[in-house]
């Protein structure tokens, strides 16, 4: 019986990702993205490398004119925008801002890029 329970527990633990263990360390609120989608890379990879992916892609886009590639910022925002605010940076718990505030890494992306998803951003072609 105990063995079966242990097997079940380990199987579940293996399948579940991002399971938060309760502890004394405050964690950022990671809002779930649009239901039914999966990010273009695993969370662990993204957490460590998203800045490099974006930085490399932005040169391809601005200098090379390649739009809509794998790490398109607009595509990130479309999926990760909060349901209510439709933004990734408007409120303190929205996707980009919550982790960046937690890590105390200031980003200036949204001084130029709109943080709103494409369907609702003002001025977006309807």
């Amino acid at each position, binding site marked *: 019986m105990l063995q079966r329970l242990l*097997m079940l527990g380990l199987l579940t633990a293996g*399948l579940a990702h991002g399971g938060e263990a309760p502890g004394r360390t405050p964690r950022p609120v990671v809002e779930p993205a649009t239901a039914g989608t*999966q990010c273009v890379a695993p969370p662990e990879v993204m957490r460590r490398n998203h800045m490099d992916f974006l930085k490399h892609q932005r040169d391809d886009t601005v200098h090379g*004119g*390649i739009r809509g590639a794998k790490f398109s910022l607009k595509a990130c925002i479309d999926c990760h925008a909060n349901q209510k605010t439709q933004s990734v940076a408007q409120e303190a718990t929205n996707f980009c801002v919550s982790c960046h505030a937690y890590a105390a890494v200031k980003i200036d992306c949204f*001084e*130029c890029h709109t943080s709103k998803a494409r369907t609702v951003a003002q001025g977006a072609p309807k």
Partner: protein
Amino acid sequence: MSRRGFLGVAAAAIGGVMLAPGIQLIEIAQAAAGSGPTPGANPKVRWGMLIDTTKCEPGCNDCVTACNTENGLDPKPTPTSSQWIRKVEIKEIRTGRASSVPVMCQHCAEPPCVDVCPTGASFKRADGIVLVDRHTCIGCRYCVMACPYKARSFVHEPLTEQVPDVPRGKGCVESCTLCVHRIDKGEKTTACAEACSKAGHGAIVFGDLNDPDSEISRRVREIQTTQLRADLKLDPGVRYHGI
């Protein structure tokens, strides 16, 4: 626990851990069914514009309004607002002949703004479009000093509600992009040219100057055109007829 029991538990745990990424892969494949990346700037192309000022009415601002809407610019500009295209009303002093001329970044082949930019943020793309890479721009405004056409604007205040395809912000310099966000996606023309055609004036033609069969190439072969401040030998990609 027996040895077999332990091995069974370990196998189940490993199985769980290994299955999980596999399940993720299947979901990614289903999600990424949309279109792939665009091909990018083509070095064989040189984008340019032909503006027939004989078809421009003084007081008509269709091109300016279209540009403002497309790029999220200020519809009622102040001296510190960005203006990527403006209508300049000119009158020759000696003869009194008046014209109405839309002026924007001329997308020179030898752009002085690119020469003077200390970080290389102001650059000329492979297809001839002169752009500002706002990731690298430090806002020194040297390009604004260098441009002979007053094409560049400096963003003087924090901006919000940008158009998703046109990121722009405080402290950087910007100018007409020949609607590069549209062109890259395969659209055939800029917002200003489209608005001018739709309104029935037909004063602005956009196209590939390197393609001898394009409409713009045929027209510049037929009619007399001029480049602004041609004596500076910057070879702008924008040509004017009627001035």
